[in-house]
C-alpha cells in the first residue's frame, strides 16, 4: 500500500532495472522494492530474456567436430582398427597352418604358379597345332567342294578361257 504513494516506474526505468538495479535513482530503487506491479514487470521481462537465452542454447545444433591443436595428428578412425589387423594376421596364420596340415602342396603358392604355367603352355601348343593345320588345308573338304578349288569340273579349255596364256595376249 505504501508503494501506491509513488508514481510507478516508467518503461525506461524498467529497462535500467533489468540491466542493473543499482543504476536506478534512490527513490526508484525503493519503489521497485516495495511495488509488486513494477517488480512483476521487471521480473517478467527478465524471465522472458532468460527463456530466450535458454531457447537459443537449445536450438543450436550439436557440435559434431573435434578441436585439434596445431601439430596434432588426426585421431584414428576407429578403436576397432587394432582388432581388425589382429584378426587379419590370425586368419593368415590359420590359412598357412591349414595348407601345411592338409598336405595340399599343389595348392601352395609356388605350385600354383607352376600349374598355371603348364596350363598356358598346353594352351599355346594347342593353338600352334590349329594354326599349322589351317596353313596346310585352310578349308574343310566340304568347303573345297563348294568353292571348286579341288579342281573337280573344270577342264583345261575352261581354265584357258578364264586365265589365258601370256603368249596368246602378245600374239593378239
Amino acid at each position, binding site marked *: 500500500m505504501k508503494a501506491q504513494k509513488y508514481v510507478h516506474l516508467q*518503461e*525506461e526505468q*524498467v*529497462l*535500467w532495472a*533489468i*540491466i*542493473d538495479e543499482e*543504476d536506478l535513482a534512490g527513490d526508484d530503487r525503493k519503489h521497485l522494492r516495495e511495488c509488486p506491479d513494477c517488480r*512483476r*514487470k521487471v521480473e*517478467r*521481462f527478465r*524471465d*522472458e*530474456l*532468460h527463456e*530466450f*537465452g535458454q*531457447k*537459443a*542454447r537449445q*536450438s*543450436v*545444433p550439436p*557440435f*559434431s*567436430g573435434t*578441436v*585439434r*591443436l*596445431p601439430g596434432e595428428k588426426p585421431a584414428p578412425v576407429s578403436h576397432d582398427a587394432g582388432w581388425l589387423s589382429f584378426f587379419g594376421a590370425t586368419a593368415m596364420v590359420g590359412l598357412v597352418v591349414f595348407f601345411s596340415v592338409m598336405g595340399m602342396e599343389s595348392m601352395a603358392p609356388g605350385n600354383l604358379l607352376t600349374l598355371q604355367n603348364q596350363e598356358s603352355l598346353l594352351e599355346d601348343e594347342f593353338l600352334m597345332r590349329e594354326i599349322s593345320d589351317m596353313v596346310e588345308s585352310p578349308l574343310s573338304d566340304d568347303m573345297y567342294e563348294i568353292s571348286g578349288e579341288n579342281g573337280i569340273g573344270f577342264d583345261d579349255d575352261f581354265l584357258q578361257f578364264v586365265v589365258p596364256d601370256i603368249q596368246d595376249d602378245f600374239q593378239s
Partner: protein
Amino acid sequence: MKTEDNKNMSQKIAALVEKARGGSRVSFQELVSIFQEDIYRLAYYRTFSQMDAEDLTQEVFEQAYRKMNSLHDPLRFRAWLYSIAVNRCNDFLRKRKYLALLRIRTAEEQDFMNTVNDMSNSYNDRIEKKRFWKQVKSILHKLSAMEREVFTLRFMDHRNINEIAAILDKNESTIKTHLYRALNKVRGHSELFKEYRESVS
C-alpha cells in the same frame, strides 16, 4: 554455494592456464573441453551456420594455443578467449559480406537446407527451431553492430556486464548504454517478449 563453485572453477581454469603456458598440451586440451561448447555456440549465434561455427571454433582454439604466452593474467582467460572468438567471428562476417556481394553461396544458406533435411529432430521441432532463428535474426537486424554484440553476449552467451566490458575492451557504463538501447529496440518484439508487452500495455 554457486559462488563457491564458480570460485573453484575459476581457480581450476587459472591452474590449467598456468600449466598450458608452461607447454602442457594436456592442460590446454582440458581448457578446450571446458570451453569448446561455449565458443561454438558463440560462433553459431553470429553465423547461424553449423559448418562455419565449427570451423571458427577450431580457429579460435588454434589462435589461443599459439598466443597463450600473451595472456598475462590467468584469471582473465575466459574474457581473453571470448575476445578472440568475437574478433574471429567479426572478421569472418566481414568476409562473408564480400562473398555475398559476389553472390557466392555461403554455408549459412547450405545449412538452411541441412536444417530442413536434418532427420535427427521431429518435423515440428525443426519448424519450431527455424521459426525461432528467424525471429532472432529479425530482432538482431534492428540493432547496431555494438548493440547486437552486447545484447548477444549478455542474453545469449550469458556473460555479465563486467565480463562483456573485458571482452570488448570497453568500460561498463558504455556497455550498459548499448545494452539499454538494445533492450529498448528489442522489447517491441511481439512474439518473443509477449508477456512483457502485455504487462506494460
